[in-house]
């Protein structure tokens, strides 16, 4: 047995015999009353609880550890491997079986509980001890597999694969499958497929009443219509902008590039908030129109038009970012070839440029479509009576009529839509992109745009850019006036309410926003490195290691890209509200939600970064006797540093701007900035909300600027190597909306 295996075993005993098995609330290092009765009691270890007869079903897990311990000194490698594999696998199976079988009263799986030796007993959610034991058993199992020669006997590889699979299974597949289960049971928890069908085909979801009578259409149709409109408009705007910038002498290239950073650092609902301050009944522009032209104030903003406007403003830069890459990718020599063959400008555009653009356009459309589907903040702020799936899910969970089953069904529909779009993107577009960028230098000048296209594009772009500009002006100024639209007296009142610091008695953070602000930074700062590590490790396994089931893992990770935040939030609430994993209301669930919500960002930047590192470098390292971990640490990671940094930054920023997933998970104790702002908007305190938003935006812009300065370019030797720009921008273009 190698020393690493012995260490894993030691870890297992630590978790099993020493640490508190169950989740203990109010754990602290200064006051120890939570540990009363140790090793029994609330904070008891599994060994003590098992031996004392309080939880005899925990004993077989210890038996698995004991079986492995018996082979510590064994020289028979083959037998040790067998014992490790069996004991590890059985231990894990028993651990999860008892966790799911024996839960709260009337929950769990009674027949399995009886089999495990419990008679109507209950237990609380698993805690630190259980977690450490799970990890240790998994490591032992993976070591056993490595001893058998799986993955060329590399401990690090097998263990990484095991851990990634466990984490994805536990925090993505388990919650999502819980949704499915919740959809199939009625309010009392009994299996009722008829209830599922009743909910699924409910007219509030699929109704088409708005076509004939004056009632609302179903949310599914609302969502679809909104998403299609949003996809079309953002794509057209993005395309117009990309063409203008690359194909005409239009100035402002840098400004447009800067514009693309905005959606990353802007919490999605802030645009909606600014729109209210501009066009709402008491908005600046509404008031102006009323006072000068007598145009009546109306509520047109609250509904489809407002939500659509907000989403277009929020997501068009993303479409632009995608399309500018596509337009740049069209080799000018193709168009020149067309011209030398006698085609006019317009003919060239129609026969060469446009067909080459098409796959990119479809991609941008799908992105806008999915972003709109997943958007939660804007419909919440601006929706009024216009309900979409994400807001309806929210109200089904937190509203007066708490309806878990309905939320689950709605989540399934939303998930089906986004997965469908994702599937189309992967399957249909996957093989259809015409990459025209070759490694060879391509001299040649891009054809100027035909004049009519230039005019069309300009008329679309100018109002958009102007409106965006005005909106950010409102966001930055809004916090400094008494009440935007009504009373424009300059004041610091809103900032004082939110961010006052009392220095009279030492430093006391008095403002009402500080609590959520600090929580947000803390949670984001803890989850960002975890996201980066798990994401990059997964990317490394997917691109650099060969193992059975790699296709499955790849599929699972891809799938997690497409899960909207609202769905993940609901899934977490449903799955982690009861034992065996009972962590709702804690800071831990926020961290876990962020890690798995942002994992796609880490995986994508990891894959983008790794694809630029020649595989033969890994092989060279291996033939020089380095093991996987050494190779990863000494060769891959140093070269991957830009990707690592971008993963860190973007998962941090996304954590700070996310709303949809976490709005279900925040609690009074652990509130987050975005959830707090949404609360202020709903309470009508726009001043404080906008002030807080601008603080967030400035904070993140500052942070990103600092990082880009610090790690803008990777230098290898004296000659510059193309920096990983693509990986820096990639997560934004590809990650689904928060």
């Amino acid at each position, binding site marked *: 047995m190698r020393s690493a295996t012995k260490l894993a075993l030691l870890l297992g005993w630590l978790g099993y015999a020493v640490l508190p098995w169950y989740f203990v609330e109010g754990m602290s290092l200064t006051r120890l009353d939570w540990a009363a009765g140790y090793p029994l009691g609330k904070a008891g270890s599994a060994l003590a609880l098992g031996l004392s007869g309080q939880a005899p079903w925990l004993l077989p897990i210890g038996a698995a550890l004991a079986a492995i311990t018996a082979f510590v000194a064994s020289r028979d490698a083959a037998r040790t491997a067998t014992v490790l594999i069996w004991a590890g696998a059985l231990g894990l199976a028993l651990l999860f079986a008892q966790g799911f079988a024996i839960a709260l009263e009337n929950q769990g799986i009674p027949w399995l509980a009886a089999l495990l030796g419990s008679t109507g007993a209950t237990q609380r959610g698993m805690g630190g001890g259980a977690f450490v034991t799970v990890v240790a058993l998994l490591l032992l199992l993976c070591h056993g597999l490595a001893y058998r020669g799986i993955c*060329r006997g*590399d401990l690090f590889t097998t263990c990484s694969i095991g851990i990634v699979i466990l984490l994805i299974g536990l925090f993505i597949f388990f919650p999502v499958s819980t949704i499915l289960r919740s959809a199939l049971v009625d309010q009392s928890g009994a299996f009722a497929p008829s209830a599922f069908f009743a909910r699924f085909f409910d007219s509030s979801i699929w109704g088409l009443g708005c076509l004939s009578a004056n009632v609302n259409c179903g949310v599914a149709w609302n969502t679809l219509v909104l998403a299609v409109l949003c996809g079309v408009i953002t794509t057209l705007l993005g395309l117009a902008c990309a063409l203008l910038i690359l194909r005409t002498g239009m100035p402002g290239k840098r400004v447009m590039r800067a514009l693309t950073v905005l959606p990353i650092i802007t919490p999605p609902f802030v645009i909606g908030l600014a729109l209210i301050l501009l066009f709402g009944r008491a908005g600046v522009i509404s008031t102006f129109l009323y006072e000068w032209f007598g145009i009546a104030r109306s509520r047109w903003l609250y509904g489809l038009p407002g939500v659509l406007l907000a989403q277009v403003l929020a997501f068009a830069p993303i479409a632009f970012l995608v399309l500018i890459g596509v337009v740049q990718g069209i080799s000018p020599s193709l168009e020149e070839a067309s011209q030398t063959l006698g085609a006019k400008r317009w003919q060239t555009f129609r026969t060469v440029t446009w067909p080459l653009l098409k796959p990119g356009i479809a991609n941008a459309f799908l992105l806008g479509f999915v972003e709109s589907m997943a958007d939660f903040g804007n419909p919440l702020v601006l929706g009024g009576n216009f309900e979409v799936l994400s807001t309806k899910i929210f109200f089904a969970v937190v509203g007066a009529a708490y309806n878990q089953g309905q939320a689950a069904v709605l989540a399934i529909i939303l998930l089906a839509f986004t997965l469908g779009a994702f599937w189309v993107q992967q399957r249909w577009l996957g093989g259809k992109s015409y990459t025209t960028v070759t490694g060879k230098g391509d001299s040649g000048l891009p054809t100027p745009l035909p004049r009519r296209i230039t005019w069309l594009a300009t008329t679309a772009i100018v109002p958009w850019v102007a409106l965006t500009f005005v909106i950010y002006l409102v966001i930055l100024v809004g916090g400094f006036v008494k009440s935007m639209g009504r009373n424009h007296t300059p004041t610091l009142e809103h900032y004082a309410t939110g961010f006052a610091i009392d220095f009279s008695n030492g430093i006391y953070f008095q403002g009402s926003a500080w609590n959520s602000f600090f929580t947000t930074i803390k949670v984001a700062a803890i989850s960002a490195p975890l996201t980066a590590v798990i994401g990059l490790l997964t990317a490394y396994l997917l691109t650099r290691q060969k193992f059975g089931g790699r296709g499955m893992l790849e599929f699972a990770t891809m799938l997690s890209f497409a899960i909207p935040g609202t769905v993940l939030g609901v899934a977490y609430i449903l799955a982690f509200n009861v034992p065996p994993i009972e962590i709702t209301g804690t800071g831990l669930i926020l961290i876990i939600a962020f890690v798995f919500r942002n994992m796609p960002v880490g995986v994508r930047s990891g894959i983008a970064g790794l694809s630029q590192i*020649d595989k033969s*470098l890994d092989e*060279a*390292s291996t*033939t*020089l006797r380095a093991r996987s971990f*050494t190779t990863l640490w000494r060769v891959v990671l140093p070269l991957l540093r830009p990707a690592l940094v971008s993963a860190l930054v973007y998962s941090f920023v996304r954590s700070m701007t996310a709303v949809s997933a976490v709005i279900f998970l925040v609690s009074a104790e652990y509130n987050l900035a975005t959830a707090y702002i949404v609360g202020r908007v709903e309470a009508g305190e726009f001043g404080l909300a906008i002030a807080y938003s601008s603080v967030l935006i400035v904070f993140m812009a500052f942070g990103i600027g600092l990082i880009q300065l610090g790690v803008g370019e990777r230098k290898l030797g004296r000659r510059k*190597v193309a920096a990983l720009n693509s990986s820096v921008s990639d997560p934004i273009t590809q990650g689904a909306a928060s």
Partner: protein
Amino acid sequence: MTKAGPASVEFRNVSMRYGSVTAVDNVSFTVEAGKLVTLLGPSGCGKTTTLRMIAGLEIASDGQILIGGQDVTRLSAADRDVSMVFQSYALFPHMSVLENAAYGPTVKGLGKEKSREMALDKLALVGLKGFENRYPSELSGGQQQRVAVARALVLEPQVLLFDEPLSNLDAKLRRRVREEIRELQQDLNLTVAYVTHDQEEALAVSDKIIVMSNAKIAQQGAPRALYEEPANAFVADFIGDANLIDVTVTAVVDGRADVAIGPASVSLPARGLGPGPAKVAIRPESLLLSGQVGQSSLPGTISKCAYLGNHLDIMVETPVGELFVIQYGHHAMLEPGTPVSLSFAGSGVTLIPPA
């Protein structure tokens, strides 16, 4: 420091399959200790896969691989005493030349000073003294190649592998570097397996050449044997140029065969063939142009003639098809349409079993 010395490499019925594609099909060969063996073949023939199986970068689907008599079939690359020089050199771009060369001993845990010493030693050997603190991107292609060789040599592996090491160098440099590699191999008494698709390079450096085609070994043997006695049409055509002609063996007496090449008739070593249809491979320089028509000569007409400095490339239309002829030395150009007679030199004309 224990030095294992060069070790032999043996393949026993080794196959490599990726799904339904067979990259290497039931291959057996031996690389003797201290010898340089070349794996030669067109792209996609399985030579690089074979090399990577020696390294342990690919694990064989079937068969046995032995290094120094020990079965290493299932050992990973990190557990084999084998180093490799990659086609792309695979120098770590974030490490200096010295750090690159010292990588092996460093990750082996030999300590900083010791690693540095070993690296400097081998860098001096390849003539890169004074370049220690440069980065790979600051070196020329030839220098990068030397760093790659030094890095592979530092651990004094039992077997050293080269994967098309010269393909990124220009033609002049290629000749010099291949001579250096050969010298190094002989001076240090290394076992080397060397992959190339350039037959001239293979002939120049090898003790033994293994010609591969379609995942199988087409022929293995000393360079001279391969050139002079190709076992089949593929080898005859791949190593050097050859005119392949369908012929008839009329009679075999005492190991000599009477062969009818069109109207001409020649006597060749039978190589185990009996009377009947066969093929003959004729090197272009073994076809001699002459004026007279004899019993053992082939009539023809010049169809093309190109001047290439030290020789002429000539195409001659004959009753057995168009033949490629090389005339060395300074001859006058030949006008197309000129009637000629082709006779056969004493060597470079070989019978080959029909495919």
